[in-house]
């Protein structure tokens, strides 16, 4: 099959072999679950339980606030022992509900399964929102928002993101191998909601088994499987759309502006569970890996499980940990400690050894142009970063700083080890702040 791709990008060592062949394991519940109210892009949910309340698995513990927001649910049954700010993966203390599991793991009785064929589109959308479904690739954008294009925008293609281009991560890979049926069911529901028939699953060519399996299973459902070149960031929304359809999302626009909706394969599976079984998003699959993890695994985890518990399930640490990263190594977020909980966006937990962390000081830019050639948005990262360092933010905007997707290619390749992405991100923050003020 012809491998499609985009222009730019690079291929870091994918380091997936540690966990690619490990079947998904159920992670036992920890002693305490810490469930933050803010787990998605948009307004944080509002906590609606109090200390001492008994909650059932799947019960709403925080309600959505606004359109771009989703409710949060209890990941197991038990007692609420605290409602207070707790360390959050974002790096600061944010409101969270702490639940002490009762060990029964009892679902809320009111949750009922449905047959999607008997439901109308609006009801389906509402159920997806009520189930707290967000993009599980890591960006955690509420799914129902993507499924509600405003008047005048027509959607003709649904793209399923099974690329998993981040090195180390294998959660989506395992999901495609093991829960293919749910993904396909989710795709069918999504097609019904969007009222379209074309669906494409993009999978990077380094997962031949997943491509073979999905191709075989998807054939009767009229779902295309597109093998993609192994090239980071193939799984970034804009690059994936370009590779799969040849279309480009307009600068400053959304995928729906070019007629496409992109959902992660994990999200599709979660939507199937939410509709068929009526079960909200209270667990997800995450890869726990890295050189400092004794036995890397793919785990099915309850939302709110502390990272320390995940490490314990994987044989503990080996060597001195140097960096704890939630998500993949290219776009994940470094953590202060293993005390923070896994949330809906936690596609992986990567722990690097101290000696693997490059602490080289940044040198001067030698204008080698590597950042320019790898940028998948075709920006000039070094120019933007230079302006940002001089606080010349108007110039960074003219250089299209706001179009940067922060994929990390430029920083990865830079021989002067300049923190280009950080500079650009800093500039983006300054530009946005300026825009808010005016």
């Amino acid at each position, binding site marked *: 099959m012809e491998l499609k791709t985009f222009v730019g990008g690079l291929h870091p060592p994918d380091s997936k072999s540690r966990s690619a062949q490990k079947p998904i394991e159920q992670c036992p519940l920890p002693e305490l679950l810490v469930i933050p109210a803010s787990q998605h892009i948009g307004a944080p949910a509002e906590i609606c339980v109090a200390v001492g309340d008994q909650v059932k698995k799947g019960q709403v513990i925080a309600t959505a606030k606004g359109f771009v927001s989703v409710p949060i649910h209890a990941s197991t049954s038990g007692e609420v022992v605290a409602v207070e700010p707790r360390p959050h993966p*974002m*790096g*600061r203390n944010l409101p969270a509900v702490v639940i002490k599991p009762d060990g029964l793991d009892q679902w809320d009785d009111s949750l009922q399964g449905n047959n999607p064929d008997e439901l109308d589109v609006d009801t389906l959308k509402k159920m997806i929102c009520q189930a707290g479904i967000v993009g599980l690739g890591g960006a955690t954008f509420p799914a129902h928002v993507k499924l509600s294009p405003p008047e005048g925008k027509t959607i003709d293609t649904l793209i399923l993101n099974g690329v998993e281009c981040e090195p180390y991560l294998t959660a989506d890979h395992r999901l495609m191998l093991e829960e293919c049926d749910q993904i396909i069911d989710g795709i069918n529901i999504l097609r019904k909601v969007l009222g379209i028939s074309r669906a494409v699953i993009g999978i990077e060519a380094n997962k031949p088994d997943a491509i073979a399996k999905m191709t075989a299973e998807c054939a009767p459902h009229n779902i295309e499987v597109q093998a993609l070149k192994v090239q980071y960031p193939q799984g970034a929304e804009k690059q994936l759309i370009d590779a799969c359809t040849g279309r480009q999302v307009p600068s400053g626009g959304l995928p729906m502006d070019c007629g496409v909706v992109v959902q992660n394969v994990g999200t599709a599976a979660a939507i199937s569970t939410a509709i068929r079984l009526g079960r909200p998003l209270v667990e997800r699959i995450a890869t726990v890996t890295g050189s400092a993890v004794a036995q890397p695994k793919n785990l099915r985890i309850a939302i709110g499980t502390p990272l320390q518990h995940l490490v314990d399930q994987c044989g503990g640490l080996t060597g001195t940990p140097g960096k704890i990263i939630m998500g993949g190594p290219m776009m994940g977020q*470094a953590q*202060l400690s293993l005390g923070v909980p896994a949330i809906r966006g936690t596609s992986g937990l990567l722990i690097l050894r101290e000696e693997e*962390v490059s*602490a080289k000081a*940044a040198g001067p830019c030698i204008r080698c142009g590597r950042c320019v050639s790898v940028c998948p948005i075709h920006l000039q990262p070094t120019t933007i970063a230079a302006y940002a*360092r001089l606080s010349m933010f108007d110039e960074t905007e003219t250089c299209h700083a706001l179009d940067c997707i922060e994929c990390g290619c430029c920083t990865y390749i830079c021989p002067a080890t300049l*923190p280009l992405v*950080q*500079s650009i*991100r*800093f500039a983006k*923050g300054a530009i946005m702040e300026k825009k808010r003020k005016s």
Partner: protein
Amino acid sequence: MLAAVLSIGGIGFIAATALGIAAKKFAVEVDPRELAILEALPGANCGACGLPGCSGYAKGVVDGSIYPTLCTPGGSETIQAIANILGIEAAAVEPKVGIVACQGDNSKAANKYRYLGLQDCNAAQKLADGPKTCPSGCLGLGSCERACPFGAIEMTAENLAVINREKCTGCGKCVSVCPRQVIKIAPAEATVHVLCNSHDKGALVRKYCQIGCIACNICAKTVPDAYVIDKFLASANYEHIENAAAAIEKCPTKCIRDFSTGYPEGSSFLPPTIPAKTKAA
């Protein structure tokens, strides 16, 4: 030889004439007072007056859209000069200097993590609120040093910002770039300051900093008027600076410093040999 001298000389002459004519012909009319004021200003374009540069300030002062007393870097002299040019009465201004209200360098204050990346305090602050465990201490990555138009700020080897009181003009540029508001502008005649910015409770401060204010109240008890404690942080009361130095020895964490006797540890600045700037008459 002669030809060369003549031709070069000729070219020079023609160019000079052309420039002269152009200067006359395309001259922009400027109020002479504006030029005179611009001349009197320090020319650092620091922005202390709230305008982007000295020329903007001069223009504003002449057309009356802005007060003539806002140039803190220039101090009383400049204000007097502007007043003379405009023919108005000048009010005396109090000279001010910036104070870094923190002594918690890397040897004395704990860090939550080892920071890698952009050497800029504002960028570091965005990463889990900065590496320093203390939520209000100096991050030491030198954003203020780079922002200072007068070269008055240095970073010590242990990453603490220190402001030179003789070079500082009190323009406040550093205050606006510091993500943690560690820098305060204080009257130059006050030399005794509590160098801590943490409003955390004493027990918590002790955990992350050896030289932070623990709000024990001893300074306020020793010299009652000179110190006030607000939200677990002592600060010098600049209205009563006379005996403030008496509390320095008593402070258990040594976070009070008299700048007339020396700068914080690690600084290369020498204590001022001349007496501190006094209030202009």
